[in-house]
């Protein structure tokens, strides 16, 4: 078993290795490496190691052209959770409030529908996707640094929440520092674990586009959320759409790609969700007005002739139903399901 030795050697030498090198230095290292002791140390930290040759290694990841030599795993779930339908949700770190909201809603609904959301624990879209998914079930985060590190530090709590129900994986042994060149390598795992990759917001030269490219290379489906054509944050996603990515106009678009039935959403969710049949006329009026486009509460009140208090009450109820979302004082229609 030289795979673990290779991963640890890579960490020690700061190299990126996907196969055991044929060097004298590695040979010396391998002979002196006490695998059992290292595995015990990992277990003490609550970490696991799944080698590439291990039957538990995700089959989907094995098919990419440069699969990692193994994965370090943190968290309670089994790695088998990524064998079902999986979707990567990635995007800009400096995302807009709207983009973050879309990522969270997509992730939540997709998780409810039985997909596993995979992302990179970065700021912005990644974190929002993880948060949204956590509201409905477990999620998987792929790190671009040592498995024992929480990077960025601000997401330590989020990482702990993910590990409490889902998984955090990394091809890097404990102690590896985050470095800019490791993130594209991380992205290949994100794309490799997922059936489909959804890009929510991306600038012209964004790491999310690297993930999308890698997904395309492996023949996986790429979807993009359309954005304003004048916004820098949609340059990348609109570029993907021009190249033929599937546009995401509702959750159903993603579910269709994943081969999931849009009607499989759990019944409790349905109660909050599309049940607009039973919506009171007062709420329906406000919902229709919000559906016209993003709007502030004051303008909404003027447009439909309700008092500020009544509009506030209606908006709060619609928010609870998930039909309206608020960001920075602007109200938008919630993501449609079908």
């Amino acid at each position, binding site marked *: 078993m030289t795979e673990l030795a290779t991963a640890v050697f890579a960490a020690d030498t700061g190299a990126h290795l996907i196969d055991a090198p044929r060097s004298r230095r590695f040979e010396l290292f391998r002979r002196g490496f006490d695998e059992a002791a290292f595995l015990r140390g990992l277990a003490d930290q609550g970490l696991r190691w799944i080698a590439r040759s291990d039957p538990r290694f995700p089959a989907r990841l094995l098919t990419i052209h440069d699969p990692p030599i193994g994965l370090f795993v943190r968290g309670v779930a089994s790695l088998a959770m990524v064998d079902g339908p999986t979707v990567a949700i990635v995007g800009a770190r400096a995302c807009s409030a709207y983009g973050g909201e879309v990522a969270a809603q997509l992730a939540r609904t997709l998780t409810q529908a039985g997909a596993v959301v995979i992302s990179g624990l970065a700021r912005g879209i990644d974190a929002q996707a993880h948060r949204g998914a956590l509201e409905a079930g477990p999620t998987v985060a792929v790190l671009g640094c040592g498995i024992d590190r929480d990077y960025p530090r601000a997401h330590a709590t989020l990482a702990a929440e993910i590990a409490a129900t889902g998984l955090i994986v990394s091809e890097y042994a404990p102690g590896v520092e985050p470095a800019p060149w490791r993130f594209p390598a991380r992205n290949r795992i994100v794309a490799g674990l997922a059936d489909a990759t959804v890009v929510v917001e991306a600038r012209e030269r964004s790491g999310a586009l690297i993930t999308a490219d890698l997904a395309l290379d492996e023949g996986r489906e790429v979807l993009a959320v359309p954005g304003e054509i004048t916004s820098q944050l949609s340059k990348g996603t609109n570029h993907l759409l021009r190249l033929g990515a599937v546009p995401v106009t509702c959750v159903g678009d993603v579910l269709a790609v994943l081969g999931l039935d849009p009607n499989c959403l759990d019944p409790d969710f349905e109660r909050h969700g599309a049940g607009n049949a039973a919506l009171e006329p007062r709420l329906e009026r406000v919902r229709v007005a919000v559906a016209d486009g993003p709007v502030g509460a*004051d303008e909404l009140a003027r447009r439909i002739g309700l008092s500020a208090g009544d509009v506030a009450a209606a908006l709060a109820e619609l928010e609870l139903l998930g039909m309206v979302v608020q960001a920075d004082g602007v109200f938008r229609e919630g993501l449609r399901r079908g």
Partner: protein
Amino acid sequence: MLARTVTHALVGLEPRRVEVEARLERAQPAFAIVGLADRACQEAKERVRSGISASELEFPIRRITVNLAPASLRKEGSGFDLPIALAILAASDQLPPGALDGVAAFGELALDGRVRPVPGALVAAEGVRRGHLRQLVCASESAAEVALAGVEPIAVLHLADAVACLCGLRDPPEWPEPVSNAPPFVPDLAEVRGQERGRRALELAAAGGHNLLLAGPPGTGKTMLARRLPGILPRLDDDRALEVTRIHSVSGVLAPAGGLVRIPPFRAPHHSASTAAIVGGGGRGPQPGEASLAHCGVLFLDELPEFARPVLESLRQPLEDGVVVVARVLGRAVFPARFQLVATMNLCPCGARGDPAARCACSPQRVQRYRERLSRALLDRFDLALTVPRPRGDELAAPPGEPSSVVADRVRGARARLRDASPELTPAASDLLTRAVERLPLSGRGRARVARVACTVAALAGSESVEPEHLAEALSYRPPKELVE
């Protein structure tokens, strides 16, 4: 030759009785003040000497010793000038025996003998009343304050007047009746165009005494709204007015010859303010800070995240208990500070976030750092929080909104209803609240806060009970997710 007068020193907001003893001896002429007198108090020597001479009275060429008892209490300020002068005059037989019985004095002397007002006359006068004295000799500017405490002022313009009154040569001069506080200028709500949601939140804040946080890009009218809050708050009742007046008297911010402070105070300290300036303190004896000056009124913190973190955290005690306890070497003081907190903030450090017409260049880390300056504990204290988006052009061209007087009437009605019988949650409203707690990041304190605001909404609507729509409206004023996560 020994004579005594009584005056009062201020410790925080409390008067302490101080006896001023003057003794003249036939010895080398000298003038000494003993009894832990501070610098301003030591300088009284020069003012008293000059003031007595200027009043065409005789400054005794004797060895003069003035003792301020109790000797262990530190004496500060210039209010001791007048009692010292009167004690010396009495000791040198320039006042008839018994002239100072039942009389206290409080005031500063000018070099030409005029009597100047000193902050804290109201508190000193309360000490006089508690000490069962009849009259207080004071500057005519302070007379209105003294009268508020129920003590008869001998309001004098000059030391010579004081002597004449005490000798019975003339009656104390008339002092101006306290003008029933000419209301300070408070801008009117009618000037706010559009901003219905902001106006609504302001009305709720006034009706329920809720703390209010307004967020949004610059130029959306957050500050404009906040400054109009005092105009729709009810006037203070007698007890509260007296408490507020006492604090303002000690701090010397009371309008001269004004009566009780009836309009709820509005204090807007700049964000460079120190902790001591906000909660009280100071190098000398403890002085009330802005939080106490805003007692029974509004403490307005514009650009909340720009305040130093320790300053903001120090506000948590008064927000919780309604008092500030300041401990200093020179003493410990408890100042009332039950204020309503109103604050504004931008959504990011550059201010462009939330404004469709501007591009925000802040990195996520910068935005996060900016928002992290506010602790969750502090954010939890805001019952009402809302994001004010930039108004559109046609909104600004709208006709003037409702004037403050109309809103103030509704607020008064709602307050009366809340005082008599606070509305209770109906089962349907309870259900909605439970559902909201499941779906939203709402802490236990958050839940209670929403229920409280819902009561205010119901009271404003004139409803006996809290219906689901009242509760839903209250939910819409919870702090935005971006801030609490």
